[in-house]
C-alpha cells in the first residue's frame, strides 16, 4: 500500500542545531531532551494537500460525532461507571442534572491518526487537554521556513482566536495548569503569548487559585486578582478530584458560568472505554466505528495470550501503560497485565492495527498524526514518530508540512 506520507530530507547538522535552539528560545520548548535522545526529529513529514484535507475531513466528522456523544453521555450518568471514570467525577457529573453542565468554549480535540495496512485508523482522541501546540505551531513553522514548505495549520493561533472570540477585548483568560511542571507551563506561556497578541489579558495559575462565586471564576494570586472571562484548562480532568474540596473543582464539570476550554465533561469521550457504551447511545458514530479499532472490556477477550489485542488504561495518556506484548519490555508487560487483570474496569482491550512505518535515514519509523479540531474546524497537525509501533514519551516530535 502506498504511503500517503513522505519524508523530507534530513536537516543538515547546522540546520538541526538552529532548529533546536529556535524551538527552545522562540517557541518556548523547554523539554527538548528525554534521557538519551533529543525529542525533535531530524526531518519532517510531508503531506500532499489532498492527504491533509482527507485527514481534516475525517477529524471534523469525528469531532462532530464526539461532541454529540458527549452531550448525550452527560445526560446518561448510568453509563459513566462503564467508562472507567473515577467515582468523584461521576458524582460531579450527576450533579449537572440540577446545576447544569459547565459551558464549553473554544472546544479543542485532537485525533491521533496512524497509517495502517487498512488505511487510516485512529488510536484515540485527546478531548480533554490535548497538548502539542508548541510543536505543531512552532516547530513546524521553523521547519517550514527551513524547507520552503507550507504549514499544515496553526492550532495555537486557532485556539487563541477561538478564545478571543469568546471573550471581550481586554478580557482576562485564566490558564489553569499544574504550575510545577515546566512542560505544562511552557505550553501555557506559548498560548498566553498568542492571547496577549490578540488583546487579551492572561493569568497563569493552578486550579486551587480559582475563587468561584455564583459559578463565576476569579483568580486569587499574587500576580493577578479579579474575575476571569474564560478558563483554558491544561490540568487533566481526572486529576481534579485530587484537589482539596475547598478548591471547588466540581465547577469544571457542573454549575460554572465562566466558559471553559475544555469543560470537564470532555473526559466522557476521551475514556478509552468510550466504545463500550456506543450501542447504548442514540448518537450515530459512523466515522468512529470506521476508524477506531474494535474495543472491548478486558474481561471479554483473551488479550493475555492473543496478540491481536492490546490493553490500555481507560484514562491513560502519552501512550503510558499501553500493553503491546511484543513491543514493550517484558517487565513492563507483566506490570500492565497485572494492573489490567486486577482492575479491568479501568482498562480497555483494543484490537491491534498494523501500523506501517516510513523509511528515514535507513530506519523504519512509525508516525502518528494528531489532527486538531477547534470549535468544529480542522486546525493543524501535531506529528510524532517512534522507532517502535507505540507512541509514548520516547517518541519524537516531528514537523508535519504540506507540499505547496
Amino acid at each position, binding site marked *: 500500500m502506498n504511503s500517503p506520507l513522505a519524508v523530507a530530507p534530513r536537516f543538515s547538522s547546522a540546520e538541526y542545531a538552529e532548529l533546536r535552539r529556535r524551538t527552545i528560545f522562540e517557541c518556548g520548548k523547554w523539554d527538548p531532551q528525554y534521557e*538519551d535522545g533529543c525529542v525533535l526529529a531530524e526531518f519532517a513529514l510531508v503531506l500532499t494537500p489532498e492527504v491533509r484535507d482527507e485527514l481534516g475531513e475525517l477529524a471534523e466528522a469525528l469531532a462532530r460525532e464526539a461532541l454529540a456523544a458527549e452531550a448525550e453521555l452527560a445526560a446518561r450518568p448510568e453509563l459513566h461507571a462503564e467508562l472507567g471514570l473515577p467515582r468523584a467525577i461521576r458524582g460531579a457529573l450527576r450533579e449537572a442534572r440540577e446545576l447544569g453542565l459547565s459551558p464549553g468554549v473554544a472546544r479543542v480535540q485532537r485525533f491521533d491518526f496512524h497509517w495502517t495496512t487498512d488505511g487510516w485508523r485512529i488510536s484515540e482522541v485527546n478531548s480533554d487537554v490535548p497538548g502539542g501546540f508548541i510543536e505543531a505551531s512552532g516547530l513546524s513553522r521553523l521547519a517550514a521556513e527551513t524547507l520552503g514548505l507550507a504549514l499544515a495549520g496553526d492550532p495555537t493561533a486557532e485556539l487563541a482566536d477561538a478564545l478571543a472570540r469568546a471573550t471581550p477585548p481586554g478580557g482576562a483568560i485564566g490558564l489553569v495548569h499544574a504550575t510545577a511542571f515546566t512542560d505544562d507551563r511552557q505550553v501555557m506561556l506559548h498560548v498566553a503569548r498568542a492571547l496577549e497578541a490578540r488583546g487579551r489579558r492572561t493569568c497563569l495559575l493552578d486550579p486551587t487559585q480559582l475563587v468561584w462565586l455564583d459559578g463565576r471564576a476569579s483568580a486569587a494570586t499574587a500576580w493577578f486578582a479579579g474575575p476571569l472571562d474564560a478558563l483554558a484548562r491544561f490540568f487533566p480532568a481526572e486529576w481534579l478530584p485530587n484537589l482539596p474540596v475547598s478548591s471547588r473543582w466540581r465547577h469544571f464539570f457542573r454549575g460554572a458560568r465562566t466558559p471553559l476550554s475544555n469543560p470537564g465533561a470532555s473526559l466522557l469521550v476521551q475514556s478509552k472505554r468510550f466504545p463500550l457504551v456506543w450501542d447504548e447511545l442514540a448518537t450515530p458514530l459512523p466515522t468512529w466505528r470506521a476508524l477506531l479499532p474494535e474495543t472491548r472490556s478486558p474481561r471479554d477477550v483473551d488479550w493475555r495470550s492473543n496478540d491481536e489485542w492490546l490493553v490500555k488504561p481507560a484514562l491513560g495518556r502519552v501512550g503510558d501503560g499501553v500493553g503491546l506484548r511484543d513491543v514493550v519490555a517484558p517487565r513492563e508487560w507483566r506490570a500492565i497485565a497485572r494492573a489490567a487483570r486486577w482492575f479491568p474496569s479501568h482498562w480497555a482491550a483494543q484490537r491491534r492495527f498494523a501500523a506501517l512505518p516510513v523509511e528515514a535515514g535507513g530506519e523504519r519509523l512509525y508516525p502518528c498524526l494528531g489532527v486538531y479540531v477547534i470549535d468544529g474546524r480542522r486546525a493543524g497537525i501535531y506529528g510524532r514518530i517512534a522507532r517502535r509501533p507505540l507512541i509514548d514519551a520516547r517518541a519524537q516530535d516531528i514537523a508535519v508540512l504540506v507540499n505547496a
Partner: protein
Amino acid sequence: MNELELYARWAPDDGAWTPWVKPVLFAVPHTLADEEREAWRAAAERARGRWTPPRAGDTALVLDLSGPDALALAVECAAHAYRPVPLFNSCLGRNAVVPNEPLRAGLELGVGALAAARLHRDAAPAFVLDSRRSQGGAKPLMFDNRWRVFAQDFPSANVLLARSIRTVVLVQAGASTPSTDLAHVLLRWQTAGLAIHAIDLAATPPALVPIRVAKPAWYGALFQRLLVTLGLRRNAAGGFGEVVPDATTTGTGFA
C-alpha cells in the same frame, strides 16, 4: 548577553553533555539586581576551597546543594576539568515557592569563571541540582514552582559507561543519602554497574564514601512520574507532597 548567548556558554554546540542542560532558566529575560550580584559573590566565596573533586576522568559529579551554592561549586569544579550541566527545571516567577532568581543570576555571573576553565568538549559532567527544589509548601497566592528530577532528565547508565564514566559522586550538605527523586536515578545507574559515592560537605570532616542506594518507594513503577504527580496533588495543585497515591489510578500529564 542575551538569553541565547548565555545558554550557548553553558551548553556549547559541541559539548558532550549539552543535550541535558535544562533551558528553562536560560529562556527568560532577567535583569540582574545588585543584591543578586552580592549573593553570587557570597556563594562563590563559600564554594572556594570548599571541596576538591576527584581528578576528572572516569567520574561524574551530582551536586545537590542549596540554590546558588550548587552552581558556585560547579564553577569551582570546572577549574578541575568538570563540565557543569545545570539541570534546574523550574521557572522564575513572582511570589514563587522556590526562589530561582539567585540561580538565574549565577548562570549569568558565573560565565566568566566557566570560560576561564577552557573545558574540553568531552570534559566529565558535573550535574547541578538545587536541593531546595521540593522543599517548603505552597501557600495560597503563591506560584508553586517546586520540582523533582526524573530518570529522563539525566543520561542513561549506558551513555555514561560508553563515555568511560565508572563512578558517580553525589555531593550534598547535611545529608548522606540521596533525596528520594534522585535515588530513582542513582539506583538505575548503580544497578547498571556504576559505583556511587557520596560526600556530606556539612560533616566534619567531609568524607567521600561508597554508598548502596536504597530502593525508593515506587521504584520502577509503571507510572512512576504519574505516581509522583498524584502524590503531590493530594495536597496541592502543583507542588510536590508525599502522599501515597491510589495504585489503581491511571493517566499522566496531558499529551
